């Protein structure tokens, strides 16, 4: 039973890897950025597990800046991906401009909230 699930998992992993290799480079860059943001968030969570969450507003602002920018990057990826038929008419420059604007607002609020 375990061997079949592990073989399943391996097959899954392989097919996933081969399918992912086919995605365009610009999307891979965005994925890398999302991965970096999530990784930073995990580091922060590990930190508060060790040290404690005082001051809470600083913790929240740090964590939410990571999660926020990750979410916005995923939205950018969705809008830029040429396979999405809903966003066919959206020029990628406009999508990127929206992304920059939202990030600007996000980080301004973070700066205020950081204390």
């Amino acid at each position, binding site marked *: 039973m375990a061997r079949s*699930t592990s073989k*399943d998992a391996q*097959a*899954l992993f392989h*097919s*996933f890897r081969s*399918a*992912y290799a086919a995605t365009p480079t610009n999307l891979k860059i965005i994925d890398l950025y999302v991965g970096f943001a999530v990784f930073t968030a995990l580091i922060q969570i590990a930190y508060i597990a060790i040290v404690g969450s005082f001051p*809470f*507003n600083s913790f*929240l*602002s740090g964590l*939410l800046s990571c*999660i*926020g920018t990750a*979410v*916005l990057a*995923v*939205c*950018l990826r*969705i*809008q830029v991906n040429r396979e*999405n038929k*809903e*966003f066919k008419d*959206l020029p990628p420059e406009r*999508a990127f401009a*929206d*992304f920059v*604007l*939202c990030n600007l*607002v*996000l980080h301004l*609020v*973070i700066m*205020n*909230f950081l204390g």
Partner: protein
Amino acid sequence: MVGKAEPVNGSVKSGSNQSIPAAMQSPLKKSDLIPNLSLKTLKLKTKQQELLIRVSILCLVYVLAFITRLFSVLRYESMIHEFDPYFNYRTTLFLTEKGFYEFWNWFDSESWYPLGRIIGGTLYPGLMVTAAIIYWLLRFLRFAIHIREVCVLTAPFFASNTTLVAYFFGKEVWDSGAGLVAAALIAICPGYISRSVAGSYDNEGVAIFALLLTFYLFVKAVNTGSLAWALASAFGYFYMVSAWGGYVFIINLIPLYVLVLLITGRYSMRLYVAYNSMYVLGMLLAMQIRFVGFQHVQSGEHMAAMGVFFLLQVFFFLDWVKHLLSDTKLFQAFLRITVTTAIAVGAIALGVGTASGYISPWTGRFYSLLDPTYAKDHIPIIASVSEHQPTAWSSFMFDFHILLFLFPAGLYFCFKRLSDATIFIVMYGLTSIYFAGVMVRLILVATPAVCLISAIAVSATIKNLTLVARAKNKVTQTGFVRGSSSLKGSSKASLDQSQPFQRNGAIALLLGAFYLLSKYATHCTWVTSEAYSSPSIVLAARGAHGNRVIFDDYREAYFWLRKNTPPDAKVMSWWDYGYQITAMGNRTVIVDNNTWNNTHIATVGRAMSSYENEAYEIMRSLDVDYVLVVFGGVTGYSSDDINKFLWMVRIGGGVFPVIKEPDYLVNGEYRVDKGAAPKMLNCLMYKLSYYRFGELTTEYGKPPGYDRARGVEIGNKDIKLEYLEEAFTTSNWIVRIYKVKPPNNRWERCSIFTLGPHCAALPFSGNVSWLGRINFSTNAGIG
């Protein structure tokens, strides 16, 4: 363009079928026969005509929404109404005088003496900041206006803006015709007017605008999938959070809507973009308000949004993996593992959070919406507010009129043409109607939804009817050059037999619709004029000869307080009047409308329900200098303190078991006449209300001491006050102010017949005269 002009639904107001496309008529010089006041002389194309009609209708609706709220300003004067707006006015005044930094960090020692109140951290600043910005803008343009005028007219101004947002929202959900009707309906709907008249300077006036704006921007974001619209809706949400505590409705409705879309299979990438950006940015912005603080991550009421956020991540991640993988079998296995892990993790996190108390449960205020009987048993203060009572059918009819049966009709149309936007408006309508049924005050939140859905019904019906009514014109115009104004053309013979009946039926129904809408307009104006335009602080009545009599007692009393008491005097009254006393009388109060400290209010309630000597001890411990009571026995004013007295007993008894409600009732009945309970006849509230009232004749043919508000002759007419003295009674006896006497300077000769605080405390001190010492031994230990 020929003969295909779409029926302009703005013609609801004019009820006319006569708008004729100009392109049809200009080659025939029809305009020569009609005087210059005609659209055709402007030689506009149909699209421009339509734009002109739309813009002019919107302008008229904008002005209408503003002026229909001005009844009380015209009848009385430009002043702030009721109780809560006085606090908002006071804080706005402080903001404009001292600046934003002082306002944000304000600690007020003039209320809740001796505790004080952190105003900067316990209010919703949106309304005050909005009024202050308008004030500074006007000052910048050199309009020398007083902040009070700005405060009084803020709510009507934002009501006008709400009609504009309603137009755009209606256009987004259905079409521009529905938008126009929605704007017109919401401009005069009494449910909204009740909390946004001129003078009602309260959070709801601005909050409903913010609510509708947030919903409109979010629906727009879902429809377009654009990050810019999602950012705008996050800012709309921030404005709503800064304006009113009812933002909890938004942060629960939107996740519920996302969930419904997911379940019904209408999800798309646009939904992901819209909800996620709005949630993260909105949550961060909302946490900037001190009063809200960390509630978005710690309070049970906000957990639904977070749960849906995580659900969306999982859902779309699975969707992406499925799209990437070609083998469905492998994907099923992967799906199973991921879903079970995600659900398990989520459930564990929620369980641990709730059990450990980290995620606070739903607060009483909102829990009582889900379980309406909760407040009555557990939190008497919430139950005592009259606006929190369940709604009667008559209130619904009063506030909505024909919208009440247009609402189900609109629901039918929405279900016929389901889209993301109509699903949203249906959900908003149903949830808000449920809450409106639980609490009278929440009819306000339901009003925009009801207006929008009814507008859809009206617009769709009238559009269909006018299409039917104009159908004959299409057939006849091919052969006729005369205008369609001659509806009784002689080509009847060439048509089907059913056509004239259909056409006549359609015209009859159109006339009926016009009649209904005009009745609605009449009703709304009548309701506004009669019921919702009273300032509550100034009372009016009809005199014996039909002339209007004004009772301005409240302001008289507060002005007396302001001018005749020392600046550091402390006033004790029931919490209803706290805001007004601080704002107009400029004196420190013990409790006010914020009701944040139940024990403090219960202390005041206990003082009011005790005998005079026990109450004097409580008042001395609170440093009270003056006591204020409201009494309606002379004028027949029924919202006075004697009618509220049982709530004082209940709230006081909730904290101090020495106060028992059955002591004040006789056979479960609340009476103030001869048959009343003895504790009732001698408690402080009774004495202060009816002091010297026994000598007054209030009505011809009735004995002196006849209480006009209760309709009985009072039981205890011979009232003597020992520890207080009467300081001021207003001209109609509505407000009565008493001064608390300080303790005696010298020890009275104490005997077994005089008991009380001023006889006690220092049993064997050398200050006592040798005469006093003889009698003191009888009282040793009594204290």
